[in-house]
């Protein structure tokens, strides 16, 4: 049961990053690739009907985490208190940025909300990357299963880590580049002419940077978590995952070079998903490792809910996911194709 729920939560986080990842990426990039008011509108409109649904993966995933692993939810959310609160504020500001720009026809108003959308998307990407890096590095868990991390201490991995240190900042930068690339590829798929060309151009540079950062992140991770390869050494088959990650990156370069945007975007989805799966494989069966004493690690066994809760949960979760996937298919089919400006419909 623990194994199943570990992967259920992992899959929901993957879905969140892959889906919401591209609209965060659009938020980071749109100031640079969309120059005219018309292009800005197109880029915001390309995510307009879907961003909110994408963000639901975060809420549904958070809720699932809460009931399947209450200890992890309680410990991690209170331990990363400040970072989490900042993330919540950023989510609020980002939603305002996307939704309110169209309400008033004024350059100042729109520039203000475009800026808000940009900054909140940028910082969110960095915080998400840093959050994942924190989980990999481990946190100073006490015997009671709790910890508290300040935002930063001495920027070193050591007995007193902060949420931000050199390793987690690398994680943040990696996420920033990866999500920007994801957004650039999405815009290449959804737009035309100059906006599309600039997005493709940005994607090339971002992809090369991402390749370099991904290679660099391997030794960095080994320094931060020396036992990170244990599971891989036990089951060498698992080395398929890192191999596939690099294949996906090469795929992005190859397909974006041939201007096959859809395929490049698909490769980017695979890249993001496998990065997370790779991290999950390394952690399993730990949920949140301790940075001082591995006896204090929060493991699946320690954190898992009671058996009846999980059995019932499996039933409704399966049913609910079928519905959710159906909605996603309907919405994405409805709003498929290139975004353009025309005279029908009304905004909100």
């Amino acid at each position, binding site marked *: 049961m623990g194994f199943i729920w570990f992967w259920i939560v992992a899959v929901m986080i993957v879905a969140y990053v892959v889906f919401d990842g591209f609209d965060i990426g659009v938020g980071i990039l749109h100031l640079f690739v969309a120059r005219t008011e018309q292009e800005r*509108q197109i880029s915001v*409109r390309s995510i*307009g*009907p*879907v961003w*909110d*649904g994408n*963000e*639901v993966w975060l*809420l*549904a995933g958070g*809720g*699932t985490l*809460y*009931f399947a692993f*209450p*200890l992890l*939810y*309680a410990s*991690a*959310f*209170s*331990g990363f208190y400040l970072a989490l*609160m900042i993330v*919540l504020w950023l989510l*609020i500001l980002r*939603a*305002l940025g996307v939704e*309110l720009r169209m*309400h*008033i*026809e004024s350059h100042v108003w729109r520039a203000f909300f475009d800026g808000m959308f940009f900054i909140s998307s940028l910082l969110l990407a960095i915080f998400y990357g840093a959050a994942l890096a924190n989980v990999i590095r481990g946190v100073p868990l006490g015997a009671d299963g*709790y*910890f*508290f991390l300040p935002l930063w201490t001495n920027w070193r991995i050591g007995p007193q880590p902060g949420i931000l240190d050199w390793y987690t900042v690398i994680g943040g930068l990696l996420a920033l580049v990866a999500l920007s690339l994801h957004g650039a590829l999405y815009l290449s798929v959804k737009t035309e002419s100059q906006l599309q060309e600039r997005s493709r151009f940005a994607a090339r540079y971002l992809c090369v940077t991402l390749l370099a950062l991904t290679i660099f992140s391997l030794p960095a991770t080994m320094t931060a978590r020396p036992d990170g390869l244990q599971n891989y050494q036990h089951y060498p088959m698992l080395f398929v995952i890192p191999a596939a990650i690099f294949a996906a990156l090469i795929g992005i370069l190859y397909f974006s070079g041939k201007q096959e945007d859809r395929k490049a975007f698909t490769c980017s989805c695979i890249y993001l998903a496998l990065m997370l799966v790779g991290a999950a494989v390394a952690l399993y069966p730990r949920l949140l490792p301790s940075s001082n004493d591995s006896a204090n690690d929060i493991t699946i066994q320690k954190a898992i*809910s*009671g058996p*009846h*809760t999980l059995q*019932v949960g499996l039933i*409704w*979760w399966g049913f*609910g996911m079928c*519905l*959710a996937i159906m*909605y996603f298919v*309907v*919405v994405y089919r*409805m*709003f498929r*194709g290139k*975004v*353009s400006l*025309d*005279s*029908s*419909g*009304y*905004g*909100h």
Partner: protein
Amino acid sequence: MGLALLIVVLKSIALHKKDERYNQAARFWARIFAVNFLVGVVTGIPMEFQFGTNWSQFARATGGVIGQPLAMEGVFSFFLESAFLGLFLFGEKRLSPRAHWASAFMVFLGSWISGFFIIVTNAWMQHPVAYRILPNGSYEVTSFWGLLTNPWALIQYAHNMSGAVITGSFAMCAVGAFYVLENQFSESGKLFLRVGVIAGIISCITQIFPTGDIHGRYMAKHQPASVAAMEGLFHTQRGAGIVLMGQPDEEKQTIDNPLVVNNVLSFLIYGTTKAEVQGLDKIPRDQWPEPLPLLYYAYHIMAGLGTYFALLMVVAGFLLWRGKLFATRWVLWPLMLSFPLPYIANTAGWMTAEIGRQPWIVYGLIRTDQGYSKYVSAGNGLFTLLGFMGMYSLLSILFIVLIYRIIASGPEKIAPALVAEPITVA
């Protein structure tokens, strides 16, 4: 949530009567709904996370029970709402009238399901059922069905949703009355008033009877301390009266300047004027709900406003039936000005529920002072509280400005900003 229902009503009339005016009205209210939805989404996200961030001991103990409805809210309601809101707002031209009606209905369904799961969560904290305590001290559901059909949840849900419809009706009436009094867009204004007043009468009455009535009696049975404090009843009494007004003095255990109707409280709770009602003197001092005066006032504000709403709507409904409402300025004015009051009444109602539960976070099982996050210092707590206050102030200002603009630009033409550059995804 109330508005979501009213939009479905407007869309249904439009579909049934093939009357374009109702579609136009639905479009107008959809724009107001979209702004409300945005504020609801962004303020709702923090709530789901705050169980863990600020109440981690409570979250750890009870995740096996209340984590369930919270996760279900995400899975069953938020996906539904977000998907169909996009279709409803952006898809009118691409969908058939029936399909567009269906998208409105799905948004309504999503928001009402969401309300249900949240109430199930809260109801378990108010009246825990269907649980057992595991050896490690955490709680587990023993009957999933029992959790979802907690009697407290069903009553609270009915009462809460009725309150949501009141809020929607008052908003609709207020805009309608404004247009009629201003003599601008007055045809739309009359349409809003007709729908708003009828929905208002129904919801204001169900708010008091049966939902409020049953809720109060059920509470008296299971949370006697809360009811005694809400009513300001310090001493156990036979034939207890109801305090309409007065200021509770906790030290002397009296009500100053009381305005009391004899025997009514006994009658409301037990159906007979003679029955004995438990006062706070029967409750150990360390189990009194605190802050007691705030609870007392919150309850009285809720009940007082609820009574006013019902009276106003009945009068307006009578005039509507006689065909005189649109010319009766002394009723249109209060209809226009009363729109903030349901927000206050709803807030006061939630304060009654939440302060009334004190000193428990889960009634009778976990005290509130055993539920907080131990390692989050008060300084960090204050920092984030101030941050949220700033953020919510910004939201409030934006909300008011945007709603005002939508109302000022009127329902009969689409706002200029949107005429100039309307966009769809082709």
